């Protein structure tokens, strides 16, 4: 399980818009076809087969959505932690810029030798 999740994380990241989470229509269709009464036995059998296919499809969609969510970038942490990390990075960058500036201002004399 751990290896599997690691493997999926290495796949190319996708955007949120690509994730398919429209489960309600298919749930509705399944329930409707279950509750529908058929007088014709052949129609009932066909509907039942159709229904089981839809259940399988729902399962498949749920699995696909799970794998797609694992490929979404930047959701390893919740938003607060992510913002904290963002701040840390910004502070790091600021400090490094200051350090560089310090280094550059330090050598105000000319060095003619190599």
């Amino acid at each position, binding site marked *: 399980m751990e290896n599997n999740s690691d493997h999926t994380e290495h796949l190319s990241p996708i955007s*949120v818009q690509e994730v398919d989470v429209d*489960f309600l229509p298919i749930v509705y269709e399944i329930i409707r076809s279950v509750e529908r009464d058929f007088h014709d036995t052949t129609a009932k059998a066909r509907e039942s087969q159709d229904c089981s296919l839809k259940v399988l499809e729902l399962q498949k969609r749920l699995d696909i959505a799970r794998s797609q969510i*694992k490929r*979404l970038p930047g*959701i390893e942490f919740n938003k607060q932690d992510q913002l904290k990390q963002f701040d840390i990075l910004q502070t*790091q960058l600021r400090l*490094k810029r200051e350090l560089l500036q310090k280094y550059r201002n330090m050598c105000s004399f000319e060095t003619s030798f190599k």
Partner: protein
Amino acid sequence: MASHLSTRDRLLALIDDIELIAKEMIEVAIAPKAQKLSAPDHAQLTELLLSKDADLKKTLELADEQAKIQQKMNELKAEVDNKDQDIHHLQRQLKDAEQILATSLYQARQKLASIVKSRKRPVPSEELIKFAHRISASNAVSAPLSWQPGDPRRPYPTDLEMRLGMLGRLSDLPLNGHTPSTLNELHRITTGGVPASATNQFTWHPSGELHMSMGGGNSVQIDGRSKDAPAQEDVEVMSTDSSSSSSSDSQ
């Protein structure tokens, strides 16, 4: 929903919930009429499914925001890496500069020390010139301008002087079946009195020049004896580079 969970875990948990509720609803729909849920329960289940779906959509929006933040973070990380490289580069340059400065400081200190030393014991230029004259008077630095082949006045030792020197003696020793075991013995052999018949030993290397220099033998031998040590030094230097003999003499 616990806020410490990551957004990914929250999304996956919501999908699990939706799956569970949908399964429950389908099972209830399939179940015989006696086991069916009451209408309010069913409505509650449906409400729950709808709220979970809404939650999922909301969390996906949050994920979208986080993806944008992540993109900014990636840019920041790239910039931080860039700065890191710059810092390393500058640090290396500073280290180099420190090394160069340390070397030049050391050399400057040495120079200052020698300046102080020379100020303590100044040498008048006249004395230096006198000394230079004295060195060049014996043609130890350079041959006279009017030098011709056969003229014994030359800055490097003559053939005879070479053979009287330590190197000539060394090559002679194995012939006598006697090798010096210690340095003292070697010293005794080389500096000890040269027997009158010593020149006869050199007949194994006959050359025209030997006969020629034998003519002015006395003066040459006296010269060679008086500056025995410098002559040996010359031999060492001249064996590799004859042009450096003058510089080694002047030191």
